[in-house]
């Protein structure tokens, strides 16, 4: 592996997930050496385990965090607002695999939905047209099924219930994808063996992750210096205000410094704004890239909820690809339903261990155990839709709580917007009707899990006063500071975000590579 001197001003990427992992591949592929600092270890397929709690303990980001606001997660999981991965590959290790694109108007929600009280809607500075070529590249990288001539996954048991129910209630737009796990061998990865373990890392390697594809390929170029267990705590700057280095803790808890000519922050929507705020200085008292005051604001986590249903006959929904069932009929904005935006329905299955913990946090008693007792006969789906950005839903530095390095932990504040509540209620009703149409004997409205979709805390804007980064992911304030992760999303759309994060990172990577080659940075 390449060794880059810590005193050499390098291109430094912080994080190795969908954003960071994609960035280092784009840059090294273009001949640009990079340092990638990843807070977690490099877990390989042989390290992954088919055990829900075991895998959670192995890879979840468990650094201390606090919560506030009226969202139910703050009550059920006050110390665990998110469910993200600390390892090479970041949350692509854990992601389920749904790869819908944003719809055209989902880049223009302010213009489309109009003013919604309490919502800080804003149009993106880019359009679907700008993104289309990058969506295609990202789908080809991920190997999305149903796209680019790639085969659809077969129907598993959970999908059979889901699709039949969808058909019964009059839906048309259901299928087993698009999905980021191979149905057939593609791009050096084998076809799925339907092992049912997805959130635990895919031992079979059929699922795309940057730990499987982008990072190894970047290492193969001989231009990547990948440092694991490297937890960045501050970005430093020179007298002119440009980023000139990063400070990080290594695995032995020693403070290290890497000089930098460009810094790309890809730490997810909690850690990225936190790091910018932790990097405050006398020149930047509110943190880096924060002249707008928007760093950490407009935190979005999608409208979510799950519906589990018990049937008289066996389903065995834990067998097979977890989220290879997709229905788009409710995604179109249609204010007649009583809310703005839309949502997808996607199959979901949990093992008994997670079902016990998440079906109804805090739940107990006979009704609860009736669901658990019928485990073999359960089907399930996840409801995921656009949530309203709100200025005060935000990541801040805690004034009282400190992390393992003595630094302020991030507080995640989130209040449900009335639009989110209305959409969730509507979605539960529709999901119940779907399962009842195929004979459900008991249904369960499962509240949101700790957030897996974390968006919007360094929003992209046309004008510097409205956001943190420009249309290329470059910070408005500091010309050699970029952000490449879900935090740049101006609004969140209904789509699962990984495809869009990856497509945006390819776009930012190509732009940065060309700027570096032209010596513009």
């Amino acid at each position, binding site marked *: 592996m390449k060794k880059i001197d810590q005193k050499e001003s390098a291109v430094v990427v912080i994080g190795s997930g969908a954003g960071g992992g994609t960035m280092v591949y784009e840059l090294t592929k273009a001949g640009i050496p990079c340092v990638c600092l990843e807070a977690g270890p490099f877990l390989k397929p042989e390290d992954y385990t*088919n*055990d*829900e709690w075991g895998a*959670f*303990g192995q890879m979840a980001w*468990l650094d*201390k*965090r606090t919560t506030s606001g009226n969202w139910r997660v703050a*009550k*059920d999981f*006050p*110390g*665990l607002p998110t469910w993200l991965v600390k390892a090479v590959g970041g949350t692509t290790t854990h992601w389920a695999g749904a790869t819908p694109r944003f*719809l*055209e108007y989902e880049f223009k929600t302010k213009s*489309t939905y109009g003013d919604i009280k309490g919502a800080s809607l804003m149009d993106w500075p880019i359009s679907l047209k700008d993104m289309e070529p990058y969506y295609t590249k990202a789908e080809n990288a991920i190997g999305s099924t149903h796209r680019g001539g790639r085969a659809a*996954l*077969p*129907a*598993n*048991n959970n*999908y*059979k*219930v889901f699709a*039949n129910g969808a*058909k019964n209630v009059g839906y*048309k*737009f*259901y*299928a*087993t994808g698009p999905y980021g796990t191979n149905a057939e061998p593609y791009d050096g990865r084998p076809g799925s*063996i339907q*092992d049912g373990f997805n959130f635990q890392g895919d031992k*079979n390697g059929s699922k795309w992750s940057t730990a499987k594809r982008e990072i190894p390929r970047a290492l193969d170029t001989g231009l990547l210096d990948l440092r694991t267990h490297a937890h960045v705590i501050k970005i430093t700057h020179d007298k002119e205000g440009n980023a000139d280095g990063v400070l990080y803790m290594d695995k032995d808890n020693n403070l290290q410094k890497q000089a930098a000519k460009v810094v790309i922050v890809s730490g997810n929507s909690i850690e990225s704004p936190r790091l910018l705020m932790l990097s405050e200085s006398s020149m930047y008292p509110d943190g880096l890239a924060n002249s707008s005051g928007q760093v950490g604001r407009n935190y979005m986590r999608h409208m979510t909820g799950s519906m589990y249903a018990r049937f008289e*006959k*066996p389903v*065995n929904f834990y*067998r097979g690809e977890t989220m290879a069932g997709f229905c*788009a009929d409710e*995604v*179109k*904005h*249609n*204010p*007649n339903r009583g809310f703005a935006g839309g949502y997808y329905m996607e199959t979901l299955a949990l*093992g*008994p*261990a997670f*079902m*016990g*913990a998440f079906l109804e*946090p*805090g739940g*107990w008693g*006979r009704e609860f*155990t009736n669901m*658990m*007792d019928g*485990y*073999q006969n359960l089907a399930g789906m996840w409801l995921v839709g656009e949530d309203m950005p709100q200025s005060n839903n935000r990541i801040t530095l805690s004034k009282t709580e400190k992390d393992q390095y003595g630094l302020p932990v991030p507080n995640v504040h989130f209040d449900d917007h009335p639009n989110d509540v209305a959409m969730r209620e509507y979605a539960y009703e529709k999901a119940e009707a779907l399962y009842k149409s195929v004979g459900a004997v008991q249904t369960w409205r499962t509240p949101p899990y700790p957030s897996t979709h974390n968006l919007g805390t360094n929003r992209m804007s046309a004008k510097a006063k409205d956001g943190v980064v420009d249309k290329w992911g470059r910070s408005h304030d500091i010309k050699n500071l970029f952000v490449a992760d879900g935090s740049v999303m101006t609004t969140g759309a209904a789509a699962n975000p990984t495809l869009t994060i990856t497509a945006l990172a390819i776009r930012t990577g190509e732009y940065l590579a060309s700027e570096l080659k032209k010596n513009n940075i």
Partner: protein
Amino acid sequence: MSISRRSFLVGAFATTVYASLWSIDKSQAKISAGSKKEDKEILMKMVRTLYPHDRFPSGPYDRTTEDVIKKGNSSPDNAVMLQEGIDKLKADGFDKLNFEKSTEYLENMGRTKFFEHVRGTSTVTLYNDKEVWELLGYEGYSSDKGGYINRGFNDLDWLPEPRIEEHPDLAAFLSESPKRYAEIKNMIAKELN
């Protein structure tokens, strides 16, 4: 494992959950609270009342109760909490209540630290028990057996085989402007009325 990892969840998903996931320092967990036979029996009744499964044998409940006691002794504070909770159950004659009455009793207990300790530990430990997995028909580890591709991932036969490809109108549906889409929906609704 450091305290910070174990304590990042409190409230409904009790702190103790984390003690059951990552082993605590056993040398410091000298079992004292809940060590008497009748203590364990009354706790086990509480666990069974919280998570009643008529077809489960005593094994999983026994192991879960052991875990409730073990985690309840993870610190002197916890041990006091556990013993006080057990003593209260005994004083109230919880052991003599039938299922209905014991459920009612627990409903009225409120979300005390003791209640959340027993409930939170039980929900994680009971449903992470390998015998319970078997009883519920869950097969657990599968990669080493070649997944389910030849072992029933699609063996459901009480519903018709659904389409797996996308509907041919999907692209048109997704690209239709929402304004136009709402107009069409309204037209259809009017037509149907």
